[in-house]
């Protein structure tokens, strides 16, 4: 059953795909192209974040550290282990996913605020370790990762642009599949009411752990790809709480319950970040801007802009109600009461 809004959705997705694929050809200079790579990197990270944040409602500020681990894992395997770059990428991501099991085991035992605290602690402790353990990580001097291809700079950006686009696509596909699966339903029940979900027999802890590991794996892939692209790692940037908060900001701004929410957020925030870097350079004003944006989103738009746009479109199309709309228990009850009243009459 294809209705107008469904056509609109498919059209928007096709349009988005065409725009993304065509971007390198229309980018006026290598700098703009590199900014495009960065935006796709953010899109990959925030989509990966949304496996945990969107499905289970657990807000992690520590995903920046998982990306950093992926970057360092890949970088060290290439630079010190001598592995071929793309083998190192997948080996690094697998290692991070394995490491995510004990991390998740500790962190997911607590909920809400405690979980956020743990995720912040994860970033801080990894920053400490990677800065201090200079003999392995290079410490504050940084780690230079050899480039995988022998290409000119613009060509290098172009190749990695498509690699990141591929990663985003795979991550989106995985999210979409989970969203429609029984597994996804279990995860969403954790988001709505964890105690009731558990009482109904959902293996909540296993579900949370699995999705956390999946999320960590994708995050590490994005981080590793970044290491191969950028070629120079510094603990201060790789293990920064700011990166983690950018991801949360992007996902929230776009809408955590939407497939394309984090991507939309990444485009908006990523472009804004690049703009701020160009305009204000090294001043701390980008912190102020990020803080303001985050506060405004949390206060006034906690559901994100995609749902806001969706509501706007729904106004024009009153005849059809979207069938995949998610409803809260309270809304469902009201709806049923109204139906029951109608039936009684």
């Amino acid at each position, binding site marked *: 059953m294809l209705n107008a809004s469904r056509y609109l959705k498919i059209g928007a997705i096709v349009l988005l795909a065409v725009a993304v694929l065509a971007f390198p050809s229309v980018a006026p200079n290598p700098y703009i192209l590199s900014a495009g790579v960065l935006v796709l990197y953010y899109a990959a990270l925030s989509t990966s974040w949304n496996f945990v944040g969107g499905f289970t409602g657990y807000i992690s500020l520590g995903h920046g550290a998982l990306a950093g681990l992926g970057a360092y894992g890949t970088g060290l395997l290439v630079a010190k282990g001598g592995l071929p770059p793309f083998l190192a990428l997948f080996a690094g991501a697998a290692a991070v996913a394995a490491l995510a099991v004990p991390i998740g085991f500790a962190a997911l035992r607590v909920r*809400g*605020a405690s979980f956020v605290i743990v995720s*912040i602690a994860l970033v801080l402790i990894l920053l400490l*370790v990677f800065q201090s353990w200079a003999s392995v990580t290079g410490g504050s001097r940084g780690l230079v990762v050899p480039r995988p291809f022998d290409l000119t700079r613009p060509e290098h950006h172009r190749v990695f642009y498509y690699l990141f686009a591929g990663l985003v696509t795979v991550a989106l596909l995985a999210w979409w599949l989970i969203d429609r699966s029984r597994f996804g339903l279990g995860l969403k029940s954790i988001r709505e009411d964890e105690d009731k979900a558990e009482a109904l027999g959902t293996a909540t802890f296993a579900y949370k752990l699995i999705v956390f590991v999946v999320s960590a794996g994708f995050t590490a892939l994005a981080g590793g790809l970044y290491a191969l692209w950028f070629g120079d790692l510094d603990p201060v940037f790789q293990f920064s709480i700011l990166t983690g908060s950018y991801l949360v900001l992007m996902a929230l701004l776009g809408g955590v319950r939407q497939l394309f929410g984090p991507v939309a957020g990444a485009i908006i925030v990523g472009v804004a970040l690049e703009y701020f870097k160009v305009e204000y350079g090294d*001043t*701390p004003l980008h*912190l102020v801007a990020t803080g303001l944006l985050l506060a405004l989103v*949390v*206060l006034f738009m906690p559901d994100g802009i995609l749902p806001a746009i969706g509501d706007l479109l729904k106004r024009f199309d009153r005849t059809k109600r979207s069938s995949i709309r998610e409803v809260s228990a309270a809304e469902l009850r009201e709806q049923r009461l109204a139906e029951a009243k109608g039936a009684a009459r």
Partner: protein
Amino acid sequence: MPSGALLFQSILLGLLLGGLYALLASGLTLYFGIMRVVMIAHSAFLILAAYLAWYLHERAGIDPLLSMLVTVPLFFGAGVGLQRLLLTRLRPATLTMMSVLLTFAIALLIEGLLGYAFTGTQRRINLGYGSASLELFGARIAVVKLIAFGLAAVALTTLYLLMKRTRFGWALRATIQHRDAARLLGIDTERVAGYGFGIGLATAAIGGTALSLDTTIYPSLHWHWIGPLMAIIVVGGLGSVPGAAIAAMVLGMAQSLLQIPMGTTWAQTVFYVALFATLAFRPQGFFGGRLAQRF
């Protein structure tokens, strides 16, 4: 094996450090107890207070201890305003999560504005008594550390008396224990929560001033504090003031003692090790707290 004098000195320093940690963590437990809010910006306010103390000393020659006459009321007002104007706007269902993000945003704002106003340069207050120290059984203790500990002790005692002996304290504790029941008894819980928040932030003003006495400060310093403080309140059990105080003392002491064999950087990891050990073995915290697992 470290010498006895060094060990003794470390124990004393650990005690003094623990006192300061206890003061700062008490503010965090207050917020959490009252409103289930995890205030990431607490340590940013701490650095803000330290900067105000530094600025008043630099420009007007005012002693940092006197600067508290300005910062404490200012921070109290800011806390009341923060609770009334911003936190009450959040949806109750997602309050805990969203408050983390909101206060995180405030922390970023403070850090960015401090960097903009005072640049990223490291600052330090030069006090007449800044380098003075006392000899005590072979241990050297800087006077400023003693003053900082004294401030923490006075502030914590005042807080204790306020909570136990005044009508406001009763109302505050009732609000923490059971908000709805407190409201049924005629307590204006909204107002009490606002004032409670103000008191929490006032402890940050005192702590920040104590910090400014013997620390080099810079805008992003608050990240170094947030980790240990968060670890303390989780280990102590979220929402438990005595738990936080005990955890602060134990961890402050552990950090101070571990500095001898491990050096200052690695000794910091004790907080995170304690944090993860707590979560793995006793998620509700080791001392008292019973709220933690749910929030």
